[in-house]
């Protein structure tokens, strides 16, 4: 009995009313093992995570921790039995300072400090108010707090989603070192590069059941995607002739020397109707400011923007919208009316464009909305209220509603953050279709692998300046990564 797994969950099932979220989920974690938990949108991954961490009780099945039936009725209970989670959203209290947050969870201070420093956060004071700290720091504090609790099993749910690359490195190194010292880790993620570096095995969920347990070896990506999807999708790139035709004429959006102090220094590019232009940048290189200026949220400190050859300046988001620029935030909560239906959310920008105050043209609206819903492939069980959709489906609504509206210029800011592979692969064709309908799309993504899938070319921003422009055909991850770090050795590739 020397190799009793640290965690052994089997036959876990959970239903919400008529919806079976989980039917037969399995997961084992041995000492010193890092297991990736993967699954597409709606596969039941988040339900499974909630059950493991005690936020939900399963209908059937059992969760053993070190051979003992775990009584994980609440996050407290899970913690007591040795499983400590780091959730996707920060679980620190914004109105309390760091010290009070530690006291709240009975976290020992010295180990916490040790881990904070080991994970690469410097200059943290215990009197700092959580609400004043940047998101990336909060994620690290969450992890440090979990490590300081000396868990048997650590569950990391999309831990790296909001982290800049250097912090991701530190997290992966630290977690791997802890695992080598005997910690068991469940790693929930959509990022293959991280999984293949960090994990020993991958457990794949589909439609509420565990469909496979794969060892991490070369080629595992394809196998895992196959298991998650049950099908494969191929995205072709557009040929050069089409692109050339698209790029002829006056650009829809011409940006010249745009600056917004202090981060955005000098950015210029042309975006044509019918084109998807990627924006590639490490965290905090000025991309937030670029999108803010284009959406009319803040005023630039220099440079010009012109729309269809006309100089434009946006003093208010309404000006940007009037000029045909539609901003889709990465945070879907900012874009949707959570308590209203999918239909209404899709129809909203469409109705809002009407010039007069007359009655809505309901029949016309209904037809276009129906088309959009069909395109989005949203599960009809939950169309009543947007807040009941999964995160991925919500994000599809934020983008897909512009299909119904007929948008001119779409500003997508990291639209696939924290979304599973299957939904991502539904979002890329959506973006492409918008472009083929004649929209100009500016697409910032924090995930480099997406660039060749969704974009026709990409501008790389480093230190607030455009350092490179790369055609999609040449935009493999290594090239983009070098460019994003400001390494200009491969000039020839562009």
């Amino acid at each position: 009995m020397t190799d009793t797994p640290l965690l052994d969950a089997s036959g876990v099932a959970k239903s919400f009313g008529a919806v079976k979220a989980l039917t037969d989920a399995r997961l084992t974690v041995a000492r010193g093992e890092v297991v990736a938990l993967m699954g597409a949108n709606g596969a039941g991954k988040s339900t499974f995570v909630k059950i493991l961490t005690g936020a939900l009780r399963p209908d059937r099945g059992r969760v053993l921790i070190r051979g003992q039936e775990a009584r994980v009725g609440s996050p407290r209970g899970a913690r007591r039995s040795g499983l400590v989670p780091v959730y996707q959203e920060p679980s620190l209290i914004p109105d309390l300072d760091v010290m009070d947050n530690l006291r709240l969870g009975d976290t020992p201070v010295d180990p916490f400090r040790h881990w904070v420093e080991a994970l690469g956060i410097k200059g943290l004071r215990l009197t700092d108010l959580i609400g004043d700290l940047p998101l990336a720091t909060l994620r690290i504090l969450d992890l440090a707090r979990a490590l300081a609790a000396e868990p048997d099993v650590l569950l990391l749910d999309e831990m790296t989603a909001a982290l800049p690359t250097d912090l991701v490195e530190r997290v992966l190194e630290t977690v791997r070192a802890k695992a080598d010292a005997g910690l068991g880790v469940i790693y929930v993620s959509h990022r293959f590069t991280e999984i293949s570096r960090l994990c020993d095995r991958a457990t794949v969920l589909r439609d509420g059941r565990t469909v496979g347990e794969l060892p991490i070896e070369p080629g595992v990506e394809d196998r895992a995607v196959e298991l998650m999807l049950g099908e494969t999708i191929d995205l072709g790139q557009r040929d050069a002739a089409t692109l050339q035709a698209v790029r002829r004429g006056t650009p829809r959006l011409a940006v010249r020397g745009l600056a917004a102090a202090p981060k955005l220094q000098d950015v210029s590019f042309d975006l044509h109707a019918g084109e998807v232009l990627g924006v590639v940048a490490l965290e905090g290189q000025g991309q937030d400011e670029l999108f803010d200026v284009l959406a009319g949220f803040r005023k630039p400190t220099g440079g010009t923007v012109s729309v269809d050859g006309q100089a434009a300046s946006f003093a208010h988001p309404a000006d940007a919208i009037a000029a045909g620029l539609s901003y889709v935030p990465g945070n879907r909560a900012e874009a949707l009316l959570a308590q209203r239906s999918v239909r209404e959310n899709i129809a909203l920008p469409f109705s809002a464009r009407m010039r007069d105050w007359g009655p809505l043209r309901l029949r016309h609206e209904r037809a276009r909305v129906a088309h959009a819903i069909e395109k989005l492939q949203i599960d009809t069980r939950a169309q009543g209220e947007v807040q009941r959709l999964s995160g991925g489906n919500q994000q599809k609504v934020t983008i897909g509603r512009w299909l119904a509206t007929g948008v001119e210029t779409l500003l997508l800011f990291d639209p696939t953050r924290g979304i599973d592979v299957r939904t991502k692969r539904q979002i890329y064709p959506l973006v492409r279709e918008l472009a083929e309908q004649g929209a100009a799309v500016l697409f910032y993504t924090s995930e480099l692998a997406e660039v060749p899938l969704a974009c026709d070319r990409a501008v790389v921003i480093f230190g607030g300046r455009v350092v490179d422009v790369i055609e999609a055909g040449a935009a493999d991850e290594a090239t983009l990564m070098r460019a994003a770090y400001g390494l200009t050795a491969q000039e020839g590739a562009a």
Partner: protein
Amino acid sequence: MSAFLRKHAWVIGLAVLLAVLLGITKAIQPGFGASGLESLARAALPFAFATAGMAVVVIVGGIDLSVASMMAVCAVTAAVLMERMAGVPALMIVLGVGLAMGLINGALIVLTRVPDIVVTLAMLFVWEGVALLILESPGGNTADWLERATRGFVGIDLLPKPFVIMAICIALVWVPIRRSKLGLSIYAVGSDEMAAFRSGVPVGWTKVAAYGICGLFCAMGGLSLAALTGIGEPVPGPYLMASVAAVVLGGVVLGGGKGGLLGPIIAVFILRIIRTILTLMAVDPNVTTIVEGVIMVGVVMLGTALTLRGRRS
């Protein structure tokens, strides 16, 4: 030091405002002195307790519309009991009744998951009815020592007894809680309920406890009402809206997680003294409430603007 100033800027600002208003009162009415302070403190006493209770539930992220009704229940319970039995056990029973009512409010909110504003609106009527069942019309009697406790001064003539009693009662309840994990949990739940749950805070219990504390403060408020009038009055007084007003003016954010009890208590005095000043200036009583409302919005607006600017610089 500057960190301390920034953290308590709102409370300090309120204290300065109160001092200015006291100065104005003295200027308008040169005779305003010790007895004026005493009557101000006495009038503020029930408001202060209602406000303390309201502040705790607002900090936890809720609201309690039944504070005035709970105070009425406690006032009549005190008046009825003190007619028949010794004062101290009666006082203990009244405190227990208040605590129990608060716990019931909290438990209903947590168990039924009906929004707090709806539950406590319903309980406003329930407790109102209970008060009338206990005592149909104003009557009963309160212990003499309780009445005496709210009159006169402690030591020097500038410390009115009701003020001292209020400070001691509120500090006795709140300071130990604020220093304990319960206090931390109350702020945590009010600040971000989901994050608190994930941090291992027993969210339901924390809410129930906060409403219990509110009930306890309402019991003190009811006792002070009985002490001031010498009888029990079953019809709730104007304490609900006044307490919400003082809580907001006192820097507690509706929605929870921010603020403390000191600010709201100072705000109670500010609102009372504004009323005194307007009366002294012979302002039409109908205009008085308009002025009070305008001042409230003005102060909160100014305070928010200053806080924002302070944060930016």
